[in-house]
């Protein structure tokens, strides 16, 4: 049985899960971009634009941070979908145990859940990108699609290793660490809000190693139409993270469920 077919068999389950929860997430994914644009792009941006800082080709602060906001939102949604929900499926509702008693294998379960996380990332990123397009951020349709693609890639690439973490986690304490020591610092310091060249060299290199920086760079070069060969590095980095993360997730969940 192919993983694809087995993932398809879970479609009705995930569709039911989505039908049950879509209202809240839909409203949020529409409201959130406007909050960011208002507070950081327009209000904070007003000060920054007056200061005359060089913003790496962006014509306004809003234009500079918009790709970063898009990518960071994709990260939040992707990662959020594989923390508590994964732990719940193992510990609280035991839905994974029901699944594993059927013909589904661990690899199918991981594929199904990551596919659902991808779906959520795609929807949220699409709404966010549409709002940015309405505000006139993108220079071309291709640029908009590229930034959207970068956001989806980041959301899924980060979801994979976090899934692996959740699959083996005994308590939920680790999740708040991921938020506080992983996602929030990345959100603040990975070049979404200011060029990382403002850092001292070691910190700049640290920022360059974070997945979010690669995603922000990729989305920004696409949004502004300033492509260069680094794009390949970004895509390969995020692709590897996704591949290794997914492999690790299957391995960890296998150890957890198959005892």
């Amino acid at each position, binding site marked *: 049985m192919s993983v694809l077919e087995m993932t398809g068999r879970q479609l*009705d389950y995930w569709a039911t899960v989505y039908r*049950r929860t879509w209202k809240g997430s839909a409203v949020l994914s529409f409201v959130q971009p406007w909050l960011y644009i208002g507070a950081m792009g327009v209000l904070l941006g007003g000060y920054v634009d007056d200061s005359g800082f060089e913003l790496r080709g962006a014509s306004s602060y809003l234009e500079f941070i918009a790709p970063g906001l898009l990518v960071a939102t994709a990260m939040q949604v992707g990662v959020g979908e594989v923390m508590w929900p994964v732990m719940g499926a193992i510990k609280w*509702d*035991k*839905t994974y*145990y029901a*699944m594993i*008693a*059927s013909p589904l294998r661990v690899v199918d379960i991981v594929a199904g859940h990551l596919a659902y996380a991808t779906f959520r990332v795609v929807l949220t990123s699409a709404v966010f990108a549409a709002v940015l397009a309405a505000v006139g951020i993108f220079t071309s349709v291709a640029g908009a699609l590229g930034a959207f693609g970068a956001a989806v890639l980041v959301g899924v690439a980060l979801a994979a290793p976090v899934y692996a973490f959740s699959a083996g986690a005994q308590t939920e304490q680790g999740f708040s660490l991921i938020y506080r020591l992983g996602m929030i610092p990345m959100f603040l310091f990975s070049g979404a809000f200011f060029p990382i060249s403002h850092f001292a060299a070691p910190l700049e290199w640290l920022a360059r190693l974070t997945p979010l920086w690669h995603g922000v760079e990729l989305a920004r070069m696409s949004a502004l139409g300033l492509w260069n060969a680094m794009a390949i590095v970004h895509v390969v980095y995020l692709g590897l993270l996704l591949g290794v993360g997914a492999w690790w997730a299957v391995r960890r969940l296998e150890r957890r469920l*198959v005892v």
Partner: protein
Amino acid sequence: MVTARGLRKSFGGFEAVKGIDVQVRRGESFGFLGPNGAGKSSTMRMISAVSPPSGGQLRVLGLDPSEHGSRIRARLGVCPQEDTLDTELTVRENLLIYGRYFGIGRREVAGRADELLGFFQLGEKRNEKVDNLSGGMKRRLTIARSLINDPDLLLLDEPTTGLDPQARHTLWDKLFRLKQQGVTLVLTTHYMDEAEQLCDRLVVMDGGLIVAEGSPLELIQRHSTREVAELRFGVGEHAELAASVEDLADRVEVLPDRLLLYTHDGEEALARVNERGLSPVAVLVRRATLEDVFLRLTGRTLVD
């Protein structure tokens, strides 16, 4: 349907199953009887093809679970010890979604779901959330769900543990009907009445090993007398008094709260006890059960 030879399972340094031989034939109802911790559930999980054996040989439906787990599970129905229903979904959705995991088409799974809801008397609850069901109903739904793929082999791990007597009897009735329809059942239990009601053949497990095997009747005949006279005396008197009635029965068991006299004629034994001037606080003559078999084989009672 199931063949195990020298089957073992260890978790770290702890050996839960220490080498058992089991054979389950098509159409029969087979039981694992034993106290908590006897290795029943570990054995069931290995047969369910979700837990790899640590040693020995295992074939389920003629296949090796470590190689063909998914193919085996496609033909099994599994009712785990702990309910794994999706409490956020409705009763009917639980069946529909589970059926889809087996690759059954939507239309067909809907038909089967309605049929099963009828059979398990859950039709009125079809659109209720699982959260709102009673324990007995959840259990029936779990078993209904395990039948959604029309399995060749139904595995039930402690199907009625934690249910009230009425819910247990309802469930037994359903399982008995399934058995009559020719479904092969394998179940674990620590209730002897359940084993007597449902099992054609069973093994008694203790400490990871099989200590006896046969039909409930055979086991009782082989390891116990036909009748048992229970004598209850004052607290702490039982061990002392055992000696004075020893010759009245084939065997006397001393429990903390009563004496068990194993004999072919319980009334006769009681009369003799009274002749000796002993006056128990309470007496009971009953037929021997698997509980007596278990006591005989292990020196302990089943449910502590």
